[in-house]
């Protein structure tokens, strides 16, 4: 186990206090010490593993999922972090007809012992068509459901870019799943519009509700979801009639979805796919959204913060520009600090970066987590927090790809 510890001083503004409506400002500044330890954990994933994700169960347990590949056969596997290290990997599903893609890959959701996991399986009828299949683990029965296609359209089209979130309703732990649904892309002679849909599924995998929540979204960017004090918040890359592809949010509350709202008018107009979706994290009313934009061909990673469960957002904070290709992640620590991960491509070797911000948006520190590759094969790093620990997973693309995991501990003195 490799352990790297760095201690350093970071000077930053604690806050900017405006003392009157006439904007005479008082700036309080203080030098503070932040200790960061970065520990590369022994990976439970073997060679030829990739497409990893981390998810916490909300009770302090961390889970890692990934895909093993052996020629045509793919396996979705997970492991739980114990005091003694990762548990023995458990295979959720496997298949030789999966759609394996560096940007659109399986997800695991865990809460109260229940689990849900999805993967993408090629449809029989179309070369580029695939369905979202899932299995659900019910803690009461202690068994996984049969695999099922979660969408009911029966249309051979693209379905993917899934987000999952546990949701408690009437004492039951269900799973909210959102996805990009291409059923309307096949509705006419020309390629139609990609939709954003959502459904709630019980612990046995039965569909309780399903909605179309946006009728026209960007075709190939990840969605992301987080639970706020006012309900689940979903973020995604929208698509206007004139091809503005900025980031929008919708929130589910009392059986209804809010109308899509743009977080910020970046006005990034492109007739194409950025393949760079947003990431959201939430802790009660605190919400952080990180995203990539490249208006006027200037790649930029931005962060917007909310203190009202996503009703409103701050002006964007520039996290990185222009030497980045995005692939963002975000997480909120117990102390309220906001972590944003992104890829730096300044040098020949790309780097996985992690920037830490105060709850108000002041930059506290930026760390290099690992060297990586800017290639698509390295995929999207994923970050997840438990308490004030932050976990990062990515794929190391050497001669054989392998999933890596690291843990960062922050101590704000």
């Amino acid at each position: 186990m490799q352990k790297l510890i760095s201690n350093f001083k970071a000077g930053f503004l604690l806050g900017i206090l405006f003392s009157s409506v006439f904007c005479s400002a008082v700036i309080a500044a203080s030098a503070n010490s932040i200790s960061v330890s970065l520990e590369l954990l022994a990976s439970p994933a073997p060679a030829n593993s990739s497409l990893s994700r981390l998810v916490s169960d909300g009770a302090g347990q961390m889970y890692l999922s990934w895909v093993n590949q052996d020629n045509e056969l793919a396996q979705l596997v997970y492991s739980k972090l114990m005091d003694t290290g990762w548990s023995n990997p458990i295979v959720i599903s496997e298949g030789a007809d999966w759609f394996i893609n560096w940007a659109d890959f399986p997800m695991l959701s865990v809460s109260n012992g229940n689990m849900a996991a999805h993967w993408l399986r090629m449809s029989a009828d179309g070369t580029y068509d695939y369905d979202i299949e899932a299995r659900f683990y019910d803690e009461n029965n202690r068994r996984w459901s049969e695999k099922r296609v979660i969408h009911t359209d029966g249309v051979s089209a693209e379905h993917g870019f899934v987000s999952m979130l546990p949701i408690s309703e009437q004492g039951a732990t269900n799973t909210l799943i959102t996805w990009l649904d291409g059923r309307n892309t096949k509705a006419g002679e020309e390629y139609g519009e990609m939709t954003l849909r959502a459904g709630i599924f019980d612990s046995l995998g039965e569909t309780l509700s399903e909605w179309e929540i946006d009728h026209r979204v960007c075709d190939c960017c990840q969605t992301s979801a987080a639970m706020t004090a006012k309900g689940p918040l979903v973020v995604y890359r929208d698509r206007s009639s004139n091809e503005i592809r900025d980031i929008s949010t919708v929130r589910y509350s009392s059986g209804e979805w809010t109308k899509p709202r743009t977080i910020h008018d970046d006005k990034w107009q492109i007739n194409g796919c950025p393949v760079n979706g947003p990431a959201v994290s939430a802790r009660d009313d605190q919400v952080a959204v990180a995203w990539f934009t490249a208006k006027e061909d200037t790649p930029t990673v931005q962060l917007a913060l909310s203190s009202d469960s996503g009703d409103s957002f701050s002006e964007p904070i520039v996290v990185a520009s222009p030497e980045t290709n995005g692939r963002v992640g975000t997480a909120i620590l117990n102390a309220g600090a906001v972590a944003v991960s992104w890829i730096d491509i300044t040098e020949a070797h790309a780097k996985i970066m992690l920037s830490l911000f105060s709850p108000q948006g002041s930059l506290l520190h930026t760390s290099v987590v690992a060297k990586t590759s800017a290639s698509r094969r390295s995929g999207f790093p994923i970050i997840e927090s438990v308490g004030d620990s932050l976990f990062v997973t990515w794929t190391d693309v050497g001669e054989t790809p392998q999933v890596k995991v690291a843990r960062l501990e922050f101590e704000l003195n």
Partner: protein
Amino acid sequence: MLKKSPKYLQIALFAHLTLIINSAVADEANWRIVNYWSEWCAPCRIEIPMFNGLFNDLKASNVSIVGINFDEDPRDITLDIAEELGVEFPTLTIEEVEELALRPPDVMPTTYLLSPTNEVVAKLIGMQSREDILNQLAALGITVQIN
């Protein structure tokens, strides 16, 4: 959606029409249109037939078209995907892509126009039409002979 210009449909119908906008670069050889595509990218799949047509129409000119599989799949898989997509222009190997040292695009599809010395002279972001490509060549003063 592909924008079809009646003007360029006429060009396709009337063979051997030569556009000469600026003769300063007319004798330079091997300008290259480099199109990044991917199997999962719907607009890529829509514009590939346009590039196929242009590839055939530009064979007698000093402008060639090559493709790059954005996903960096192994060569055999890349060629299988190219065949499934109906890509008729050559697809570069990973080694050839590395030699070009292009910044991988932030948006798919993206098309670069490279000078004979492999300098990027234009970056066309998003889905392009035949008219877009020809207009860009003309704006750069590149002579094209369309069969």
